[in-house]
């Protein structure tokens, strides 16, 4: 499989304005972000920003070097798509007329999603999984009439190598 995207997992100091610094760098240097997810890590001093970039247009080496110049950036890992676990979360409100309601419920079951809200004429469903799976699910739901849809952008971590616990290394550097 050829990679269509790059994933950067960026550990940053959990300080005000860090996201603006990262986003500003991308816009200033003309790089495009395909998706972006930010959340604190298990250590509250740090956050992880997962950035997905289009493989064709992004000069990944230059982006990484420029990012690393930001004082609040602690560590950057490029996660190769084949060697990373990637997940994304989607919430979707879909029209559910009585005639189609059971089909949608069945579809959610097949995709191992969840129904998280039920209205008179609509359902809100949730699905977490590989981004490609979310794409398929979204396509299928579209046929029933999407009212609203929100995806998180992907988050990713390096696949564990059975012998070397990589997460340790991150902590070792910052702690």
């Amino acid at each position, binding site marked *: 499989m050829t990679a269509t995207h790059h994933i950067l997992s960026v550990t940053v100091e959990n300080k005000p304005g860090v996201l603006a610094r990262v986003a*500003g760098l991308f816009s200033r240097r003309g790089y495009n972000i395909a998706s972006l997810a930010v959340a604190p890590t298990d250590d509250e001093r740090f956050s992880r920003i997962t950035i997905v970039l289009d493989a064709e247009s992004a000069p990944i080496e230059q982006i990484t070097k420029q990012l*690393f*110049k930001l004082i609040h950036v602690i560590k950057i890992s490029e996660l190769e798509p084949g060697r990373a676990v990637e997940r994304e979360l989607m919430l979707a409100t879909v029209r559910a007329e009585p005639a189609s309601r059971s089909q949608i419920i069945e579809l959610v079951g097949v995709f191992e999603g969840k129904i998280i809200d039920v209205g008179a004429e609509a359902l809100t469903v949730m699905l977490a999984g590989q981004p490609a799976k979310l794409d398929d699910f979204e396509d299928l739901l579209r046929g029933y009439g999407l009212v609203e849809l929100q995806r998180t952008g992907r988050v990713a971590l390096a696949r564990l190598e059975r012998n070397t616990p990589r997460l340790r290394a991150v902590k070792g550097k910052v702690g």
Partner: protein
Amino acid sequence: MKLTGAQALIKSLEMEKVDVMFGLPGGCILPAYDPLLDSTIRHILVRHEQGAGHMAEGYAHVTGRPGVAMVTSGPAATNLVTPLCDAYMDSVPMVAITGQVSRPAIGTDAFQECDTVGITRAVTKHNELVMDAQDIPRLVREAFHIATTGRPGPVLLDLPKDVLQEQMDWYWPDALDLPGYRPTIKGHPKMIKEAARLIGEARRPVLYVGGGVLKARAAEALRALVELTGIPVVTTLMARGAFPDSHDLCLGMPGMHGNFTAVTAMQHADLLVALGARFDDRVTGRVSTFAPDAKIIHVDVDPAELGKVRRPDVPIVGDCRSVIEELVEAVTVAGGAAVQADRTEWLATIRSWQAEYPLSYGDPDDGGPLKPQMVIESLRDACPDDTILASGVGQHQMWASQYWRFNHPYTWVNSGGLGTMGFAVPAAIGAKVGRPDRLVWAVDGDGCFQMTAQELVTASAERIPVKIAILNNAYLGMVRQWQEMFYGERYSEVYLSPDLPDYVKWAEAMGCAAFRVDTPSDVVPTIEKANQIDDRPVVIDFRTDSSEKVFPMVPAGASNDDVLTAPGQTPGTALRRQAGRS
């Protein structure tokens, strides 16, 4: 010990050995100006905040110590944006302190509020909004550390008024905690060894020396490398003085207005050793045709520069001084001068270019207006070797770089990357403050002068005797040159008039001695008169020939093979082939 935030700020600056700062007070920064009265720090009151920033830069350029500028919030902070960007582009160490509205008012569009940290994020190496007075000593210490280490640059601290007023417990941090900031200083030994091998083998090498060599205080190390290897040197606009122009192996400035030999030697080189240089478009011309046969050794403290424009064969991340010293060692270990490839032919070719295409301009005694190049040569010859020269941006800047003889590091103060018109006057003032023992001249254009001349009031009031030579050609000269050459002589909005303003009266009104020169025979006597004056600034209005153009020139976007030399010099293709390019 309890201090106010403002007291802690000034004390922290003293702890960082700040001896002078440039600034202008206002509402939000007011608290910081009170403890300043009791401080050992000299404060220079500017007339415009942009001046404070450029003075801080000029000071930093000549001393190597970070320049400090302090201004208030809102419009004062935005007036500082240009010098911050200038310092960022030219890697000048600088610490800027801005006032901010009190914390409860932030985000409410309060009077003189602006998002200083947001606005300056893209033009600073780092910035911080200080939200707790207790953080002040730590953040000041970090700011100076970040500004002066690695690739130097400007750092800004934005201080809300109530943070300056609140109490804190004084401390001075004895260690820094910056987990995301660890510049690489030492070059990789394997890469150094490989570089030494390539240097030894190269038959047509050139050392491409950039501003990083000056920032790393590496001029001596560079000289040792040149003496050891016998490789010719080009010094970029940012590196003038890093290697003496008087040295046999100095080819001068490369680039768009570099001299023919420097440009052409790079084009024909089989090895470029880039030291603290960044392959700027003004040096490379069209990148795809730049130095096509050259292998590249690229040394820079900023890893992002390696491969940004041209992929190096040997990338070395590290401080230039440390890496050059390691290179000298590695070349010596490999056999030193004795094992360098035979470069007799290369040096002979270079000599032939130098003989054939020296810098030249028309007859200065042709009865017409003063030749600007002649004015610079006269100034150069009338001043001591270690005179500090500042310049603005445009034709006069290029002539200054071309015709001055820079034999010492830190004698050239100019705005390279950003190309900030108006840089010269305040930068010269900052330089003179940093090096009061030196003669400081600024060569300025009439367009540039009008942008920041008011700082001569500052210079007069503070008794900072800088000297300004205005090359008054009554035009925005560089734009005029482009319109003449590339827009069919259609001159659009470039005429400024030689008499409006009256530069002599204006300078006198600002407390300066002032002279006007319009005949060649008056040039030297007037310069000598100016050099005698040491109690106030001097301005000389040299009326120069507006039709003079800067040559050589590589037109924007053209290949460096197509350098246009001065009228009357036509580079023959036969000569260019001689260098043995395949």
